[in-house]
């Protein structure tokens, strides 16, 4: 074994890139199950709430090429342990618009889709209740919010501090429902061999999907294999099982053939989750120097009647700034909507729009530069947990970003700069995201010729895992990249949590490092040479960092944007932006830049475009396709300067790597809204910043 230069951090091009560009990387729909494939199409409810009174599949069943029509009357019974939207076709009750009420299996997708029209369904509909308001009498406090956070946090006397503060801000911010919309539609291909199920599936973690399939069909781990080597984005909507995986498996069992189900774009607006709308009241109290005395962040959001999903919207507020008196709360309304789910930085994304907008408003009230205001409120320790930071570089991110962007000398006054018909402004906002490590197992083998095989059920949903994890493995094994083969995306591989919560590389990478250490120790005990028939070591990490209780672990960042608003039309353009991040070790400079950039662009898109519009009478999402649900195009994305600080963190995990999948989106919308205010003098507190709001 020879020692070589570290490849960690290098901008290695994607290992899986050539296959993806050539179209030879098989996504779920393109897998070969080894037999002719049948196709599944869905009949969905057109009401939000009520009961099926009549369901007649006879015309569909009589269609040539149709193999079966699954309905609540004939569908196989699933385990009663399934919750939320997973007990598909198990009852006549309808809980949300778009719920699957029947499914057609046919020889071709064309026949299946055409036969959907031959399923007659009648309902006893009840009036849908879909509108979120902060004054609803039925708001309730969930037992806890997502990721295990406490629902409320209260320190000191917030109301008293607000009443005596020299300066206060009291503002309510709103974010609309949003849909994840990865480019690859959710797809599941199911094949049964006896009582064993194979599912080729687009997801963010095969073991997560496997668990729900085991529950649904009463199977053991050995009977369910989920295979997902290539996935075209997820943003959270592929983290958990949704009805389509259950349906594909159910249909395949009924017809005794391989069945594939690829959701349509429209179906993705009801069957794979969404980000809850939020209404957030933020109150800040400060002394005349801008030092915060009180922070209050009260969140109202929705969940589905059949599933509680409590987005942790105010949790970032618990770590951002120092203040002796603090309060955060979350209240939910149960509505007749599909179950919400995680969408890139759930919690931090809507929550930091509110907090970072309020900080901008406070800076203006005080006449203090908004960068300086944030620096004045930098907390030396986690302000709510009262433990030290494992590392925190927000101030450096703000200062570096200000320097790169050219922030110095900025005129604090809003609405005074023009360039032709453009009103021009600049905005800043901070970003944060928790750093966590989760349990992950790993197996590394070396053959007699010194070739290494690394096996772990990690996922690459477009993030760069294939490449970055191979780099980590090569360094940990002290070999070149070319000597390591990585296998991920298969539930037969050693257990790992899914790609979510920015935990992927932190967890899988740690597992690889520790397992590689074991293997190298074994090899050294064998004299440094692998035995002729090779050697295999199983290892991993048991869960969170052992230092997670002693330290508060977060990445931080800062966004600076230039915003232009057309004085005649209210059109908004963002010609340039600077984002600086501090997220510990960066594993691959190229794919990391893409992650930061993609996150920022998604935040820009949230600021300017994204909004799922619900019809209050019919209860459905009206703009349920990419023509109606606007996402930023290339033309909306200007020059974006992405950089990161060298940050060493010995406590977060074996690699000092904090995770970067989500922090890019956090705070980006606030920076744009703050720039919009600076350009126009108008404070838009409800996203997105569409031209109609310019004319209010």
């Amino acid at each position: 074994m020879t020692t070589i230069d570290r490849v960690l951090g290098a901008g290695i091009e994607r290992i899986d890139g050539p296959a993806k560009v050539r179209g030879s990387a098989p996504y779920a729909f393109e897998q070969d199950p080894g037999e002719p494939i049948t196709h599944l199409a869905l009949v969905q409810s057109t009401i939000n709430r009520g009961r099926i009174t009549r369901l007649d599949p006879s015309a569909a069943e009589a269609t040539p090429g149709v193999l079966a029509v699954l309905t609540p009357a004939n569908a196989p019974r699933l385990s009663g342990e399934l919750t939320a939207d997973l007990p598909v076709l198990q009852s006549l009750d309808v809980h949300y618009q778009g719920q699957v009420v029947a499914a057609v299996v046919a020889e071709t997708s064309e026949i299946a889709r055409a036969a959907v029209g031959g399923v007659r369904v009648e309902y006893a509909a009840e009036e849908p209740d879909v509108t979120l308001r902060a004054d609803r009498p039925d708001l309730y406090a969930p037992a806890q919010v997502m990721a295990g956070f406490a629902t409320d946090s209260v320190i000191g006397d917030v109301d008293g501090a607000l009443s005596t503060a020299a300066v206060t801000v009291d503002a309510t911010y709103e974010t609309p429902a949003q849909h994840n919309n990865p480019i690859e539609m959710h797809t599941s291909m199911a094949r049964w061999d006896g009582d064993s199920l194979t599912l080729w599936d687009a997801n963010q973690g095969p073991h997560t999907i496997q668990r729900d399939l085991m529950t649904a069909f009463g199977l053991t781990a050995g009977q369910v294999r989920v295979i997902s080597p290539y996935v075209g984005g997820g943003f959270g909507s592929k983290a958990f099982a949704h009805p389509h995986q259950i349906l594909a498996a159910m249909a395949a069992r009924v017809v005794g053939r391989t069945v594939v189900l690829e959701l349509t774009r429209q179906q993705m607006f009801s069957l794979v989750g969404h980000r809850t709308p939020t209404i957030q009241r933020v109150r800040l109290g400060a002394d005349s120097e801008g030092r915060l005395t009180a922070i209050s962040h009260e969140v109202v959001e929705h969940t589905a009647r059949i599933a509680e999903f409590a987005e942790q919207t105010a949790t970032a507020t618990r770590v951002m700034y120092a203040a002796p008196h603090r309060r955060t709360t979350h209240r939910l309304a149960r509505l007749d909507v599909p179950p919400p789910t995680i969408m890139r930085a759930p919690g931090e994304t809507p929550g930091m729009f509110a907090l970072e907008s309020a900080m901008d408003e406070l800076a203006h009230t005080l006449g203090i530069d908004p960068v300086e205001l944030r620096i004045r409120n930098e907390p030396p320790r986690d302000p709510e947990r009262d433990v030290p930071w494992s590392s925190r570089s927000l101030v450096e991110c703000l200062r570096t970003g200000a320097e790169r962007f050219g922030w110095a000398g900025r005129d604090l006054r809003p609405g005074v700069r023009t360039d032709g018909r453009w009103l021009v402004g600049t905005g800043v906002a901070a970003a944060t995201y928790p750093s966590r490590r989760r349990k992950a197992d790993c197996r590394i083998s070396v053959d007699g010729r010194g070739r290494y095989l690394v096996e772990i059920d990690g996922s690459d949903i477009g993030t760069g895992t294939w490449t970055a994890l191979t780099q980590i493995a090569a360094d940990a094994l002290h070999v070149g990249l070319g000597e390591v083969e990585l296998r991920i995306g298969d539930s037969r591989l050693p257990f790992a949590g899914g790609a979510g919560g920015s935990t992927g590389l932190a967890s899988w990478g740690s597992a690889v490092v520790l397992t590689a250490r074991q293997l190298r120790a074994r090899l050294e005990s064998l004299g440094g040479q692998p035995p002729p028939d090779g050697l295999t070591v199983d290892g991993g990490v048991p869960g969170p960092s052992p230092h997670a209780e002693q330290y508060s672990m977060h990445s931080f960042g800062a966004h600076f944007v230039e915003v232009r608003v057309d004085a005649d039309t209210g059109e908004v353009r963002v010609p340039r932006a600077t984002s600086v991040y501090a997220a510990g070790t960066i594993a691959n400079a190229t794919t990391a830049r893409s992650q930061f950039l993609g996150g920022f662009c998604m935040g820009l898109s949230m600021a300017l475009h994204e909004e799922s519009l619900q019809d209050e009478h019919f209860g459905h999402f009206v703009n349920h396709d990419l023509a109606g649900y606007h996402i930023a195009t290339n033309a909306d994305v200007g020059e974006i300067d992405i950089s990161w600080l060298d940050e060493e963190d010995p406590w977060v995990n074996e690699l000092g790597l904090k995770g970067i999948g989500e922090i890019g989106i956090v705070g980006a919308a606030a920076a744009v809204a703050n720039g919009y205010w600076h350009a126009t003098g108008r404070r838009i507190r409800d996203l997105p910043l569409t031209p109609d709001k310019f004319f209010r």
Partner: protein
Amino acid sequence: MKEFRYERSPDPAAAVALLAREPGGAFLGGGTNLVDLMKLGVATPDVLVDVRELTSAEVSDLPDGGLRIGAGVPNADLAADRRVRERYPVLAQALLAGASGQLRNRATTGGNLLQRTRCGYFTDVTRPCNKRSPGSGCGALHGVHRNHAILGQTFEGPGACVATHPSDMAVALVALDAVVRVLGPDGERSLPIGELHRLPGNDPSRDTTLRHGELITAVDLPPLDLPSRYRKVRERASYAFALVSVAAALRVEDGVVADVRLALGGVAHTPWRARAAEETLLGRPATEEAFAAAAGAELAAATPLRDNGFKVPLARNVVVRTLLDLSGGTR
């Protein structure tokens, strides 16, 4: 998607004759809108007669100095035509403001004129829509309608419809007084483009005055001797339908409006020729005040819905700005 037959014909007359025998059939141009609607179950033709390569794909000079655009000319080719860019910049700009490069390569001139509204209730077969399913009602009227019409809607009865026409190109053609050449079962006819599209009236299922089997073969542009431009407003910088658009041409002589053409997009069931504004302006001083008064005269008839009132000041601003830009004024 319903099963359908696909047919080709040797020439336009045969295609017209074929479709005339097929009451449930439709012509297929680039298919960039029709095929989407078929996938959604909104359009359910049992026969498609492919005319994309039957009608001319040429732009040719007319003796009067105008241009004849074959109905098969792709939007991308038309936008790139040197004569169009030099003599009818409003048309080239309108074309390039629409759709995406890929769609413009595929979409035809004739098909662009006949594309249907993108109203979310029209494109969803599970919702009421008088345009798609006459008598079922208008879901948008009290629903999600921020980007719907502010002029010429029908609010009550079986004609209730607040949809907009989606085309950018058509707005420019309306301002240019284009003439649409049509071949039907009874032979050829021509109609001013202003008579092609119709307001919903009591039958929003009919977007145009064409009869079944009539095929657009060409669009004639009369000569234009005044500067023109197109301005499209949309919240996204590309690949979005207009919130409001303006096609304008203006000649100012001695500070007075000598000639003006003005049409609005995104405001009505048709591309909207702003005759009231034109009449107000003609012979008046070319000032910002006069432009604003003209826009006001046109928009006095506006009947905005609950959530699209912003289109009235938006349209006014865009009319004023576009006319100021054309007159060389700054403010």
